[in-house]
Every structure is written in structure tokens, then in C-alpha cells.
């Protein structure tokens, strides 16, 4: 995956990077003016979209932004650390259920419930990741799949999660007297979350921990010989991924006002994974593109109907066979 480092640099140019080798292609983004101009254009577009397009587009875009957050989280697990997680929806569920349950059973407000939800998701990440990250990488895939199903079945069976009907009547939050309620308001909430998610991803990728993920993914033994604790580093990726998932889940729950186990199925996990891989594992702009394709594609091509998933599945297969680095262009070496 030549591209992780590339995407990091695209987003976060080092002040004085010489134009040698690979850096050459990315030279455009080394020009801070062009880089910030591109960022500004994107931000303005995000800000005015709901004003230009109707409510329906706003709702769909909100959904796409939710996927951006989820995909960036899964990207840390799959794209950076190279761990195949087939049960990512479980963390999405933990976040959503945690705020819903706390909102109903306790007097904590929405904002006070968030830390608990995040801790719950991180704990779930440690509990499932701790013992399994030592295993072969393909065992991890199946364990996460099993774990995803366990979470969904538990949500379906337990009284506290509202069983199969789920939890409805989840209160919309207020912030300094502003009641977040309309689709447009939620759109901006998710836009803000996405921006934070992107910034956090860029910063993580550019850090000691982010590099350690790449080292471990490229060569576990060499990484360990460098003094990197591979289990710990993978666990960090897994837990951070779970926190991203939980954040997505928390706001998903208050946006929809009602949650039920169907929203956290294996299919959901697969869709998020597809977005990450289609766009380009490890590449932040690619992952964002993937999220938009997965959400907007079916809405634009309503006629596809049942074919929707088949088209994505075939796309996934073709990508893996012919362009494993995803749709987003890679730097040449």
C-alpha cells in the first residue's frame, strides 16, 4: 500500500520537503497555497450544500458523512494496521445503544452520556481484541465476524436494549440552548464530526503510533525487532477504530431517534468495509470517496434495486483483482 504515506502527506505537507523521488508527484500539495485552497473549496462546498439542495439531498449527505466517520475508523483498523474486521458494526451498535440506554435509564444528559459510550466501546474493543490480536490474521477476521453477530443477537435478546424492536423515542440533544433537531442541523453536526475525524486520522497517521501501524503491517518481525509491541499497537488501532465507530453510532442514534438490531447487521459491516476498500485502504481522500460512493450510488441509481449489492460486490472483486489499492490514485514509485 504505497498510499498511506502519500495520503498523509497530501493532507499534511511538511514545510520543506524536497522534490525527490516519490515526493515529486505530491509536489502540488507541498505548495501550501494550493493545498489550503483545495481544503477551503471542499469546506465551503460542505457548508453550502444543504442551502443549495433540498432536504432529501441533505438527509442523504448526512448519511454519507456518517459513513465517512465510520469508514475513517475502519480504515485505521484495516488500512493502517492491516487487520480485517468483519464485525465493525458492533462498535457502531455499542455507541448507539449506550447513549440510547443511558438516555432512557438515567438522568445523564446526552453529552454526559458520550464519555460512557466511548468507554464502553473502547472496553469492547479491548475485550475482543486483547485475546484475539495475537492470533493469525485470518482468525481475527472470523472472530470479529462472530463478535459482530454476538453483539447483534445480544441486542435482540436483552430487555435493556429493547429486544428486537430496539429503543425508540431517543431524545435529540441540545447544546447551549440550541436544540439539534432538523435534518439540516444534523447535517452540520455530522459535517463537523467528519472534519474532526479527518483531522484526527491525519494526525494519527503522522504520529509515532501511525508509523508503527505501517511497520507492523509491512513486516511484523522487523517491527518487533525495532522494539514495537505488535499486539499493543494493533490493539491501539482496534480500540481507536472502535471509538470512531461508537461516535458514529452515538450520533446515528440521536439523529434517527430510534435504533434496532437490524441497523447493525453483518451487511452493515460489509458495506463499511466495501467503502474503505473501493476508495482505497489507508488513503484518507480515497476512504471519503468510498463512503460517498456507497451511500450516494444506490440513491442515484434507484433503478438498480436489488442489483445494488451485486454491483458493489462485483466492484469489490474487480478492485481486488485489478487495482488492490482502490479507486483513489496512488503515488507512483
Amino acid at each position, binding site marked *: 500500500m504505497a498510499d498511506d504515506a502519500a495520503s498523509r502527506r497530501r493532507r499534511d505537507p511538511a514545510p520543506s520537503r524536497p522534490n525527490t523521488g516519490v515526493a515529486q508527484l505530491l509536489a502540488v500539495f507541498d505548495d501550501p497555497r494550493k493545498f489550503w485552497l483545495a481544503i477551503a*473549496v471542499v469546506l465551503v462546498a460542505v457548508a453550502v450544500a444543504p442551502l443549495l439542495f433540498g432536504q432529501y439531498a441533505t*438527509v442523504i449527505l448526512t448519511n454519507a458523512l456518517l459513513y465517512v466517520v465510520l469508514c475513517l475508523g475502519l480504515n485505521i483498523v484495516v488500512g493502517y494496521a492491516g487487520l480485517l474486521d468483519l464485525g465493525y458494526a458492533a462498535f457502531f451498535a455499542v455507541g448507539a445503544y449506550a447513549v440510547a440506554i443511558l438516555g432512557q435509564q438515567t438522568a445523564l444528559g446526552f453529552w454526559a452520556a458520550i464519555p460512557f459510550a466511548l468507554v464502553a466501546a473502547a472496553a469492547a474493543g479491548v475485550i475482543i481484541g486483547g485475546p484475539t490480536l495475537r492470533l493469525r490474521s485470518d482468525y481475527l477476521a472470523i472472530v470479529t465476524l462472530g463478535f459482530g453477530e454476538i453483539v447483534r443477537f445480544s441486542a435482540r435478546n436483552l430487555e435493556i436494549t429493547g429486544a*428486537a424492536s430496539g429503543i425508540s423515542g431517543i431524545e435529540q440533544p441540545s447544546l447551549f440552548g440550541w436544540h439539534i433537531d432538523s435534518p439540516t442541523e444534523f447535517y452540520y453536526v455530522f459535517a463537523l464530526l467528519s472534519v474532526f475525524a479527518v483531522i484526527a486520522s491525519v494526525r494519527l497517521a503522522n504520529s509515532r503510533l501511525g508509523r508503527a501501524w505501517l511497520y507492523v503491517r509491512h513486516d511484523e518481525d522487523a517491527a518487533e525487532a525495532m522494539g514495537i509491541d505488535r499486539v499493543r499497537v494493533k490493539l491501539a488501532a482496534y480500540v481507536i477504530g472502535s471509538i470512531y465507530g461508537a461516535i458514529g453510532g452515538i450520533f446515528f442514534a440521536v439523529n*434517527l431517534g*430510534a435504533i*434496532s438490531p437490524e*441497523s447493525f447487521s453483518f451487511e452493515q459491516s460489509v458495506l463499511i468495509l466495501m467503502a474503505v476498500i473501493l476508495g482505497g485502504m489507508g488513503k484518507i481522500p480515497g476512504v471519503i470517496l468510498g463512503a*460517498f460512493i456507497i451511500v450516494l450510488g444506490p440513491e442515484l441509481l434507484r433503478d438498480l434495486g436489488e442489483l445494488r449489492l451485486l454491483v458493489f460486490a462485483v466492484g469489490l472483486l474487480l478492485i481486488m483483482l485489478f487495482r488492490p489499492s482502490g479507486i483513489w*490514485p496512488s503515488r507512483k514509485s
Partner: protein
Amino acid sequence: MRITRRTLALTAFAGAALGGLSLASLPAAAQDSITIGVQVPTTGPEATYGNDMFNAVKIAAQEINEKGGLLGRQIELTAGDSACDPQQAVNAASKLASQDVVGVVGGYCSGATLPTLKIYGDANIPFVITASNSTKLIPANPGNAFMINSTGADQTTKAVEFMESKGIESVAIVNQGDAYSQDLANLTRDAWEQAGKKVAAFETVNKGEQDYSALVTKIKAADPDAVFWTAYYADGGLLIRQLRQGGYRGTIAVGDGSNSPKLFEIAGRAAEGVYAFSNPTAEFLPKAKSFSETYKKQFGNAPGPYAPLTYDGMMLLAWAIEKAGTTDHGPIIEALASADGQEWLSGPISFTDENTLARSNFIVLEGKGGEWALAE
């Protein structure tokens, strides 16, 4: 420069995509027609039922349009695919809401219908729910939605009354772990225990599980007089088959989700003598005869279980629009609430304070010779 071009291309793509979205949300019809939204699953696991409901609305709209339309304007239909999934249903509902529909008909999977209530509520759009009947919908209804299918509670009443009449003392209740069947199972358990009878077993199976033999043995060991399956025909067929194969000889009853001719294909002979509680389907409604014929002529097969109710839903909405004399939402909702029990295909419709059907419309069917017949 490469990257600049790429950025341009992407911007163009994004613009086109968003343009496409906003186009999709434009009113589907010309200004002088009345747009009615139809929220049904046209894809996903329940697409058969959804398309069936959509077809019924089409027939109703066609009949109205042939008679000159509503308030002198033609009806245009626009579909919102809920795919039986909460998130997709929300997308569909937002789309319908932003198309300025006069009203919405449909609602199949209760779990998917639930989060859409708020969207229609916020826009104050009249919503006639023609299939979803979970009791969870009632408290979530802001007042603009009207349920013309009897609720799970009504089905429970019918089921308990019927099983008592058969002298059944103990029953095993099996559901499939989804909102609809779990709700029905819980309601039945409570009602049955309240009637002083015994619930011998209360079980959940997973959708798509093929082997129920262990469960069958467990049920046989509990030896109930009857087994009540509260979920859909697909897995119900398998369970019935394995119950009989495993030597269970008591009564078997199923809820309205299993009322399908396919139950006989899957369960074979084992479905003989099985009782089903059902909302009235076309073949058992004397008034639905001509509707059935039109449906068969137009779509090549018999109308499914929710077709007559959905036809009624469209007709009821049309009646309310005529009565209100306007396409403004408020007066239409008032008109719907005042439904006075006049006769429709499925019988009289009037509403309780909670906007649910004021009477139970459930009937009991029995498997005879590979098809459903009226029991009692």
C-alpha cells in the same frame, strides 16, 4: 497540474451527484396533479409484499383518475423504497417529504416504519399505514399517522379466543427474533397467562436457520396442546414440517406473517390443518372480488395478503382529501380522524383515539388441500 485536473473532475462528479439528488427530490409530477407517496419495500427481503402493496395503490389511483381524479386533479404516485431497513426508510421518507406529497400510503415492516413517523410528523403529512401493526408504533405516532391494519394486540385477542375455543390449555410460542414476531409473541404470552393458561415453552429461532430438530425435541418434551408460530412463512414452513416430521401431533397455529400459499410449498403435507390468524385477504372478502380480478388481469398473479388493505388505504386517503376539499395537510388529517366507519373492501374503518383501527379485522384460516380456507 495532474492533481488540479483530478480535483476539478471530482468536483464535477460531486456536483453532478448532488444535482442528481436534488433532481430526484423534485416533485415527480406537473403542478396541477396531486402527488401521493407510497412507502413500501420494493427491494430487500420483503420486496414481494412491498411490490404487491404498490400494485394495489396503482389500481386505486387508476380508478380514481378514470373517474376524473381528486378535486378535479389527477393523482400521481411516487415511490419511496423502505427496503425494510430503518435507515433506508428514513432516506425514502425524506425524499417523499421533500417532494411535497399530499399524503403517504404504505408502511410494511414496523421497524422501518417507526423512524419515519417523526419525519412525516414534522412535515405534518398524513400517513395511512396499511400493513405495519406493531404496538410500538402507537406511542411514536405524532398524530398524523393512521393505522388501518389491526394491531398485534387485536391479533393476540383473536388468537387467545380461538385457542381457548379449541380447548387448548398449554401452548408453546415460537418467534423469530424480529420486532414484529417478538412483539406478537410477547403479547400472546401475557394474554395467555392472564387467561390462566400455561405457556409450556417460549422460544426464539434465528432467521435462516434450517435445522429446528433440537427445538422440536424440546417442544415435544414440554408437550404443549398447541404451538403458535408468530413469524413469517419461510421459516414457519420449515418449523411446521419438522414439528410434524418429529412426531408432534398437537395443534399448530401461525400469525398473519405466515399467511401465504408458499407455506404449503415449503411445509408440504405438514401444513394441513394448520390455523392462521390473518387480516382479511382478497379471496375471503366478498367485496374484493372485482379488485382481485383487476389485479390478476393487470399483474398476472393473485393479490397478496396486504393488497386489499393498501387499496383501502389509498381510497381512504382520497376520500379524506375530497372531504377536506383541499390538499392542505391539516384538514386532510382531520378528515382522516373523522372516518365514520363506512364500508371499504376490508370492512368498516374508523379510528380510536390512538389513530388505530377501531375494530379487529382478524379472521382464522385453516390449511386444507394445500391452500387456505376459512376456519370456524
